[in-house]
């Protein structure tokens, strides 16, 4: 049995209903299989703002939370989960059925509330958590990046932290491994596989670019044919004279990256999701070099 609360009102009690039976089991299964689709209530920052803020789901017994490995309370469709699309799908499954179940608050479940929720599923009015205005202002840029990438066909996959942050290999793969999506366990260096590694005494955009192109990467303007898919979309930045860093576009719309030997992530040095590597907080990596494609003939080592 699940308690579902649509967090939408400010003054009125939120619509809350109970889902039970096979439907409850099916939703729990979906949540357990897609752990990046939701955020535990205790991990969310202060809730703020007006309008639809997602669905709160609370399994109604300890047995259920243990059986499915879920927290007592979680939230989907907040705009904050790593696999937001999946959370949206679960919300789209729950809301149409809300009128079939009894309300457990004073708020009646009527079709106008349901309609309001359905209209808001895709666009939570206010994101929950540490979202700042500057992040919102970046949205147009994010769309622009996607559109430009679409001129050349690319592939993308969702952020797979379990794969990259496996304790057995996490320190053996760096940003170049992550961005090129090649887990070689060699702390790969641009140009090493082709025998022409970048000059360590001259860490510049041009020099690291030269190494990556030698490995088989392509600059953004040079579209890669479908026969060389998967074509991962990468961004290169440089800490002048010291080091370089790469990001890879994820299908969720943000950019993932792996700072050296540390775990892969999708947030910047300010803890904000990287929607745009050009404006993310990159610490000392102040030079933005450009966008690239990895492609199947590319070899890194």
């Amino acid at each position: 049995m699940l308690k579902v609360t649509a967090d939408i009102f400010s003054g009125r009690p939120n619509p809350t209903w109970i889902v039970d039976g096979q439907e409850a089991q099916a939703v729990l299964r979906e949540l357990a299989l897609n752990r990046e689709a939701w955020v535990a209530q205790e991990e969310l920052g202060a809730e703020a703002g007006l309008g639809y803020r997602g669905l709160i789901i609370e399994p109604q017994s300890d047995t259920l939370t243990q059986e499915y490995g879920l927290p007592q309370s979680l939230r989907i469709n907040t705009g904050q989960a790593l696999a937001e699309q999946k959370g949206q799908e679960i919300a789209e499954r729950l809301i149409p059925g809300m009128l079939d179940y009894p309300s457990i608050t004073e708020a009646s479940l009527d079709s106008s509330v349901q309609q309001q929720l359905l209209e808001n599923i895709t666009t939570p009015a206010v994101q929950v958590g540490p979202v700042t205005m500057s992040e919102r202002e970046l949205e147009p840029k994010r769309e622009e990046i996607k559109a430009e990438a679409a001129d050349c066909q690319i592939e993308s996959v969702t952020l797979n932290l379990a794969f990259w942050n496996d304790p057995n290999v996490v320190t053996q793969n760096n940003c170049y491994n992550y961005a090129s999506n090649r887990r070689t366990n060699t702390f790969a260096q641009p140009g090493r596989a082709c025998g022409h590694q970048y000059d360590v005494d001259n860490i510049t955009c041009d020099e690291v670019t030269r190494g990556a192109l030698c490995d088989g990467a392509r600059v953004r303007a040079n579209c890669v044919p479908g026969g060389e898919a998967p074509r991962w979309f990468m961004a290169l930045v440089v800490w002048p004279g010291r080091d370089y860093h790469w990001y890879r576009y994820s299908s969720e719309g943000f950019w993932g990256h792996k700072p050296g030997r540390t775990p892969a992530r999708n947030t910047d040095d300010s803890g904000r999701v990287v929607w745009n590597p050009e404006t993310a907080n990159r610490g000392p990596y102040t030079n933005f070099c450009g966008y690239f494609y990895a492609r199947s003939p590319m070899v890194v080592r």
Partner: protein
Amino acid sequence: MEVELDAFSGRPNPRWRLHPHQAREFTNKLHRLPRQHKRAASAEQGLGYRGFIVTGTGDELGSYDEVVVTSSSVRARSGSVSHYFENQDRALERWLLETMRGRVDQALYTYVLGSLS
């Protein structure tokens, strides 16, 4: 005993060996640190300076395999078990930073020094 400056993303981190007297001093400092009972949140996973990693051969580090010194704590790992100590006033980081002098370029030293202030 070897020290690694954990600061780079693409290139391998700079590493250097401690002189025997420095290694002894490090071990003494480590053993004097108070235990950290409430683990601080780890914030050292971004770009740029994250901390120092000290490794030893034989029993140089006592029973520990590795000591990771960051702004929030000193983590001494033995196999899969870690013990946490207070990095009081970031003194151990500052001491390790001084062992960098002359072994990495001055600009990198200055950058880390700025990160510690």
